[in-house]
């Protein structure tokens, strides 16, 4: 009986672990998180990133992008702003742009493991949706390592 419970639990954990790769409904769990990581060190800009995140979750992509671009103009070295913008592009199914913005975010987020992890998750998601399962798994692995 005990064994059955353990097996069930492991199965659930396994399935939920893979869900972002396999069973993902729209929008992805990558994007349903509350807030994008990567504090810019400037709270006014962080607020803009948070606002952009909210606008994206409401499906208001156009304004989300405008808000986040404003954030990255004010704090051009902010990996977080690029990351949040890459999520907007992901939700808009602009995978090429999402990938590039996530890469840009990675290049700026050396000091934030969390931001790097989230960027790799976006990259993994993009690759999965483009059918590159190996690339997706590879990126997810990088995310897990962080």
């Amino acid at each position: 009986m005990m064994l059955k419970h353990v097996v069930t639990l492991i199965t659930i954990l396994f399935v939920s672990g893979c869900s972002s790769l396999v069973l993902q409904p729209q929008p992805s769990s990558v994007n349903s998180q509350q807030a994008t990581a990567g504090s810019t060190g400037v709270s006014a800009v962080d607020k803009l990133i948070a606002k952009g995140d909210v606008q994206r979750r409401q499906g208001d992509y156009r304004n989300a992008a405008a808000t986040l671009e404003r954030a990255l103009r004010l704090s051009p070295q902010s990996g977080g702003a690029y990351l949040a913008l890459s999520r907007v592009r992901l939700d808009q199914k602009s995978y090429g742009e999402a990938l590039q913005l996530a890469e840009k975010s990675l290049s700026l987020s050396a000091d934030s493991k969390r931001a790097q992890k989230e960027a790799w998750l976006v990259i993994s998601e993009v690759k999965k949706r483009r059918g590159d399962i190996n690339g997706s798994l590879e990126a997810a692995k990088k995310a897990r390592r962080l």
Partner: protein
Amino acid sequence: MSSNESNGNKPPRKKKAARKKAARKKAAVKPSSKKAPVKKKAAAKKKTAVKKAAAKKTVAKKPASKKPKTSNSKSKVAVNKRRSMLRILGQVALLFTLIMGGYLIYLDAVIQSKFEGKRWQIPAKVFSRPLELFAGANVSQEQIEYELQQLNYRRKKDPNTLKPGNYARTDSGLQIRTRGFDFWDATETGSNISVDLKANAVDDVIVNGKGDEIARLEPVLVGGIYPAHNEDRVLVTLDQVPSALIGALLAVEDREFYEHWGVSVRGIARALFANIKAGGLRQGGSTLTQQLVKNFYLSSERSLTRKINEALMALLLDFHYEKDDILEAYLNEVYLGQAGQRAIHGFGLASLFYFGVPLRELEVQQIALLVGIVKGASWYDPRRNPERAKERRTQVLSLMLDQGEIGQAEFDRVKNKPLGVIKKPVYVDERYPAFMNLVRQQLKQDYRDEDLRSEGLRIFTTIDPYAQHQLEKTIAKQLRSVERYQGEKYQTLQAASIFTSANTGEVVALVGDKNSQYKGFNRALRAYRPIGSLIKPVVYLSALEKGYTLASLLKDEPIEIKTENGELWRPDNFEKVSHGEVILQQALAHSYNQATASLAMDVGIEKIADRVVSLGVEKDLPKVPALALGAVSLSPFEVATLYQTFAAGGFYTPLRSIRSVMNAEGKPLQRYGIDVEKRISPEHTYLLTAALQEVVTQGTAKTAKRYLSEGLKVAGKTGTSDDQRDAWFAGWSGSYLGVVWVGFDDNLKTELTGATGALPIWAQTMAGLTQVPLKPIQPESVDWYWIDPKEVARSKPHCDGAVFVPMIESTVPTKKSSCSETGRVFNWIRKLFD
């Protein structure tokens, strides 16, 4: 009516109630201006009626023609004569009625077609980027105040009594009362902003009592794209016009506006009486409607026919449209001044033109002046004829007092105030012609020229007025200094430059001529000149990508390369000296030609040419050995595109001059978002950036430290073409990338190099801008090592010839140098004996 301000004995009118009543009356009996089909039906009915009348007459004629003639009797003859006279008269009358009817129908059509359709061609308005203030922003008080001056804010002493468009200095910074603006993403309402500054950075921003906010100032209007006839206006709707302005206008120009039918008999009679009394033509009897008709539809000739047309059309206009529609059209149409070729129409633009503020901010005496100018924009021009304008303003204020628009106390308070007209129009044509040129070029890809000139588009660009000001100022100063130093020949020396935001690729400043106001040839975009050593970073990047390290040894010695056409190419160093074995980083920092040529031969010219293209310069390049030393002509804009990829961390980021476009009503049309694409690995970007920082600390650009703090850790490269015909510098900090070119249009030789001609402009412009240091982000797989280049081995700081360079893990030599093996003390003893 024009100038019917002579008496004012009538009690103050209950203006608003009267207007409403009139509007209700009209609404009940007249079709709304927006119901075009109804009007068309009315016109059609008229036509039918005229046709029917004509038919009846024709029928009536028939029996008359059949009457038998009675020629014997004289009386009968007389009767017949009378009859035929009457008949002719009748026919003439009929013809006249027909013609008049037709003419009225024609006039009606003319009126409706213009009033219903697009009434005006509105030029596109071009705005700068808005200055945003928040805790942590790198901006100086000088820059904020410069921006406020560009926006025509007035500086006041007391920070507690500011009105919109005012600011004051405080102990810790500035207090600003903004006007508010409709942006793409949000409407910023006018706010009270307190900005604390510390050491060229914003320490805190409090907006309406709330801390930690972002305050966004209005953008500066930097230019327009004008229709061919040069009429300019800023459209206003009736609800945007201060009621005092409407009150004053009606008091002065047309008191019975809401009562008359387009033409005022009383007005004409009063004008006639006043003219007889004065013994000359002093007053006109035109209503606002007639004035609008005159400006809108008719020529300026003074003839009876035109006067009749004007009256007829005014009646028709009044019949068809609401009073408020007519008034709104008048407020936008009226001619109020001249700025060079541009005619200033409407109160919306006049307010900016004379006072530098939007209409809603006008004070009562300013309103009185604008209303006074209606009578004669040239005669009462407050800039040319201030006394006359002031007298006119007093007349208008008196009328406003008489009509109850203002009280005695207010009249007394404002009557002696200065005119308050800004010295020169803030709204000058294309303040930044070279930048506008770029904007137009980018707009043309998406918009028709005709739409740009007529649709009243609002174009939000990336230009930073303060950065532009710094660049213009520095170029002018530096070229003057070169001329002073080098002599008269340098009078015609030219310069072009472009500065962008280092990470986003937004163009913040652009100069295409040493005279920044010059509207002709834009060198920043169109002068294609050999770039010299500016190409070397691409050669060295290609080498690093091939496996070279910054510590790899290169041979800087005479070299002969056979070109495709069989000629021998023998590059020489600038100082005509070869340096023997040098490390790669050093060869780049000192821009050694022979070492570079030899490196390029190993990397391959094809590869280098392809890399230039993949880094952003999409054009066919000559695939000859000399390409490695910059035998390729690029414009400053193209060079900036190339270097932008370096400055933006290896991501190709197209240069942009436009952020968004909105239509005349403030509806967003198009946004030009940021676009990035990885073109260089983070590792190679890091190595290249470190090497280009060496150029400034140790190499050909080390004179930059005369102007710039070394703490900024800028990276860049000098470039000098053959015979020193072109001097270049391209470099960046954490905030800005800048490219500067200096040379003669006719390609003459100069005494200048990249370091002496272009670098001073670049460095001084950078020094004028508040910015952050360049801190390249070190990838995990890169670290700094002491290397012995000769042994190609790991070394130690104390070892001879050891260099400290960043390296990618996979390229770090495993071997340890003999020095590092033997230890510090042993080496010290060995050095003693050596």
